[in-house]
């Protein structure tokens, strides 16, 4: 029963991991061309493991920014993983070592894939499968990119549109409730309207937190949208 329901989730999560891996190749190339060694580039993907922060740090260094400003911008972006951790925490139960391991793979994609599921078992499965597959493909892609040193062009294959397309599919379950639709609309508008003014990656954090202010609490207690039956 669970196996049959798990199969499409597994396929989707691993596909997403492979798509992210392609972007890791471009990170590897960008990092090396910004003056980092292959070892520094690979250790960053292994230990930092949050794409927007890594790209941001490399971009600041390449643009001639200081170590401090590179660190500041990247950590500002990394803060949003703390918010995702709050969202995931009720769904990730277990001993401390397991939760410390789960923390490393608490990123945009694993949180989004988990909360797109309706069943608690499938939410946990989607979180771990997405997190682990992205970890594997992100680091594999980084190594390939750092070694190759010359970009394959993700744009040629439309891969830059493949990621938002994947998130479009994930967004659908959240649009079943009026509050979900309102949150999605406000999130998108906040993000796009702040992109020109805020450091790269920060608009997503603003959109995620802004919605807390913009959407009033309901009079009746409600289940989170992801927990509602299909």
């Amino acid at each position: 029963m669970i196996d049959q329901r798990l199969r499409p989730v597994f396929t989707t999560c691993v596909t997403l991991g492979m798509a992210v891996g392609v972007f890791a190749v471009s990170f590897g190339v960008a990092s090396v061309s910004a003056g980092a060694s292959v070892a520094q580039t690979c250790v960053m993907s292994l230990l930092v493991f949050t794409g927007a922060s890594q790209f941001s740090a490399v971009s600041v260094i390449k643009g001639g920014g200081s170590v401090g400003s590179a660190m500041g911008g990247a950590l500002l972006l990394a803060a949003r993983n703390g918010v995702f951790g709050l969202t995931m925490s009720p769904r990730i139960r277990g001993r401390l070592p397991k939760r410390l391991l789960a923390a490393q793979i608490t990123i945009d994609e694993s949180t989004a894939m988990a909360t797109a599921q309706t069943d608690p078992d499938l939410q946990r499965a989607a979180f771990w499968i997405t997190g682990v597959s992205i970890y594997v493909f992100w680091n594999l892609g980084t190594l390939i990119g750092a070694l190759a040193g010359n970009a394959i062009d993700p744009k040629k294959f439309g891969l830059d549109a493949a990621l938002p397309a994947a998130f479009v599919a994930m967004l659908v379950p959240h649009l079943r409730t009026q509050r979900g639709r309102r949150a999605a609309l406000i999130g998108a508008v906040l993000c796009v309207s702040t992109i020109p003014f805020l450091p790269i990656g920060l608009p997503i954090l603003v959109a995620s937190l802004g919605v807390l202010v913009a959407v009033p609490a309901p009079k009746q207690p409600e289940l989170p949208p992801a927990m509602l039956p299909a």
Partner: protein
Amino acid sequence: MTWGLVLGLAAGAYAFKVLGLVVIGDRPIPAMLERCLALIPAALIAAIVAKDTFSIGQHLQVDARLAGVTAAVIAAWRKAPVIVVILVGAAVTAALRALR
């Protein structure tokens, strides 16, 4: 690029992850905050879609991606499997660029 930046960033990024998931996450949080957190995923996913569709860095730009994502929205609306939605989005974007 220095090792200090690489390792400092690694420590800081992991600290945020642990703070949310392990340190704060296990304790009861106010019901109001819990309800509000239920809204974050919808806003987050919509924001990622908007960012990846309309922006390059801090620059807003309408290009072939919009056609691809619009095609993906139509596919998702018609309840196509997620993989089909992804492939439609990438294929339409790539085709439009190839034609140009």
